[in-house]
């Protein structure tokens, strides 16, 4: 748990969490407060005004309502896919790393093959053959996205498996499955949380990309289909920037928030990357400058993080 406490103290993580929480609140309650995003409400292609805060589309729909409604659909799918990808990646990674032998050979090979295959063209072929909808989209994203987590978690398993508590568990006769899920899994919290965040960033980005291509259900309002319609309506030609900018900024803000949290996790678990601003301030007070040969002073100022948290 100290991992989460450290995380919340980190400035980057706090900023990321605040942005993310804002979007989660918007996605949860926003759609109840705005107009119907699919309704034809006003004149087509109107710039932002007091009535339509972000203007209207060529079909006369409220862009603000569409952006809010898109937040719900896109975030839900992103987080669900992120979660499933993490679970699959963790299972395969832990199994490969802990069981070793031919299991590891086969799983690692599979992981590396899926890592090297370009995701988008494969996703396009898959999505084109499946019935458009959230379930197909989730399936496509999971199939093209699981490998990275599996690789990272396998590497972590390999190093954890050398630790004494695993040997102790083996000697005390715990079953392999129990060791995998009750000894290894909980001891990788930071890697798994960071894998989940990475997978969610991927899921949101890839989903928006595929839907932009028209491979989602274009009758649903999501961030991706908003951009699909904007591109279909030639909104760039007519200079209707308001149908494009809000959705992109939202996608970027969510992605930025998630990536910030991931950097914070990196810093919390890897003190070498931790910001040195506090240390530099102390040095400046005594009139010294930092060099590479001042590790002792540095170590004294930094709280030493506990092992294997």
């Amino acid at each position: 748990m100290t991992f989460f406490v450290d995380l919340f103290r980190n400035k980057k993580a706090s900023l990321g969490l605040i942005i993310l929480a804002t979007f989660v609140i918007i996605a949860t309650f926003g759609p109840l407060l705005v107009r119907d995003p699919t309704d034809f409400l006003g004149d087509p292609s109107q710039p932002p005004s007091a009535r339509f805060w972000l203007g209207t589309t060529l079909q006369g729909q409220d862009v603000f309502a569409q952006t809010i409604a898109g937040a719900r659909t896109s975030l839900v799918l992103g987080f669900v896919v992120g979660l499933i990808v993490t679970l699959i990646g963790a299972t395969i990674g832990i199994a490969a790393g802990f069981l070793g032998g031919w299991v590891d050979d086969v799983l690692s090979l599979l992981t590396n093959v899926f890592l090297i295959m370009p995701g988008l063209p494969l996703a396009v072929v898959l999505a084109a053959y499946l019935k458009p909808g959230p379930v197909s989209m989730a399936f496509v994203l999971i199939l093209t996205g699981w490998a990275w987590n599996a690789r990272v978690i396998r590497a972590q398993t390999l190093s954890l498996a050398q630790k004494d508590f695993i040997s102790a568990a083996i000697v005390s006769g715990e079953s392999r499955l129990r060791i995998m899920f009750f000894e290894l899994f909980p001891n990788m919290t930071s890697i798994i949380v960071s894998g989940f965040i990475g997978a969610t960033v991927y899921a949101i980005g890839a989903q928006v990309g595929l839907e932009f291509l028209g491979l989602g259900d274009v009758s649903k309002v999501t961030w991706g289909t908003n951009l699909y319609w904007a591109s279909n309506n030639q909104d760039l030609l007519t200079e209707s920037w308001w149908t494009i900018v809000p959705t992109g900024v939202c996608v970027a803000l969510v992605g930025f928030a998630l990536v910030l949290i991931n950097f914070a996790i990196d810093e919390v678990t890897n003190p070498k990357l931790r910001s040195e601003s506090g240390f530099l301030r102390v040095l400046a007070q005594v009139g010294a400058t930092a060099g590479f040969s001042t590790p002792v002073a540095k170590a004294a100022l930094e709280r030493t993080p506990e092992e294997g948290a």
Partner: protein
Amino acid sequence: MRFLLRRLGFYLLAAWVSLTLNFLIPRLAPGDASSALQARFQGRLEPSALAAMKEVFGYTDAPLWQQYSSYVNNLLHGEFGVSVAYFPAPVTEVIGSALLWTLFLAGASVVISFVLGSLLGILSAWKRGGWLDSIAPPAFIFLGAFPYFWMAMLLLFTFGFVGGWFPVRHAYSDHLTIGWNAEFLLSAVHHAFLPAVSIVIASLGGWLLGMRNTMIGILAEDYITMAQAKGLSPRRVMVHYAARNALLPNITGFGMALGFVLSGSLLTEIVFSYPGQGYLLYQAVKSQDFPLMQGLFLSITAAVLAANWLVDIAYVFLDPRTRR
């Protein structure tokens, strides 16, 4: 050499997996892919040609393994079928003409963003906490969070439509013919500029952070302190001692990220109507051109695998430990 051969074996395996997936997806998908193909071509092909077409894809009544062997055989002979959208051109022809543009655009932007990102990473790790280190990483993380194609749309809108400084579509001016002359090359660079910038902006942050983080790890090594104690110039320590060693893990990452960056650049091509693989992919999706889609999947995969092998060869030159 053993290293390169082992890698080659792996890439062949990856190629086999992707062409098998390509074979299985239409057959496992709900609905009958063969009749879908037939519906697309209805009225545009003679029945005998349609039958031949179906055979090219192996959609026969033969058992699955026989379909599979004829499918592999056809692929090995370069038979990818006929495109629906660009009927009656064969898929290989359609893809071939677009492949060079993608290699040019994606290749140039990936190399530029890798070199630039690595340089910025080296500098920001070297002057840890300096102005570059406090501005560049967060700025590029933020820019990298935008979807590639969205960044492309914004640049196209600002500098293409509103500013009018750059062409808004295609790879070269319509009244020029392809050739090795200054006018054509200039036009090609002019057209590729905005799409390349959008790919570079969106992907640079990744290289920057990767390089910065490995550099920080390496700067704490004893041999760096030793080099400084010897009184070597800071520049020499930075370039020859730290950056060279930090580059290795980043090059491995480079190979792996290629597929990802390429995927993004495909979407960028669509925004700019750039006549590469991505634009074709869009056309294929719009007109439900399954043969073209599948051909593109295979050709893009092949390009990524080949690029990865080139990275491996570069790695052998850079890391003597692999030369055993």
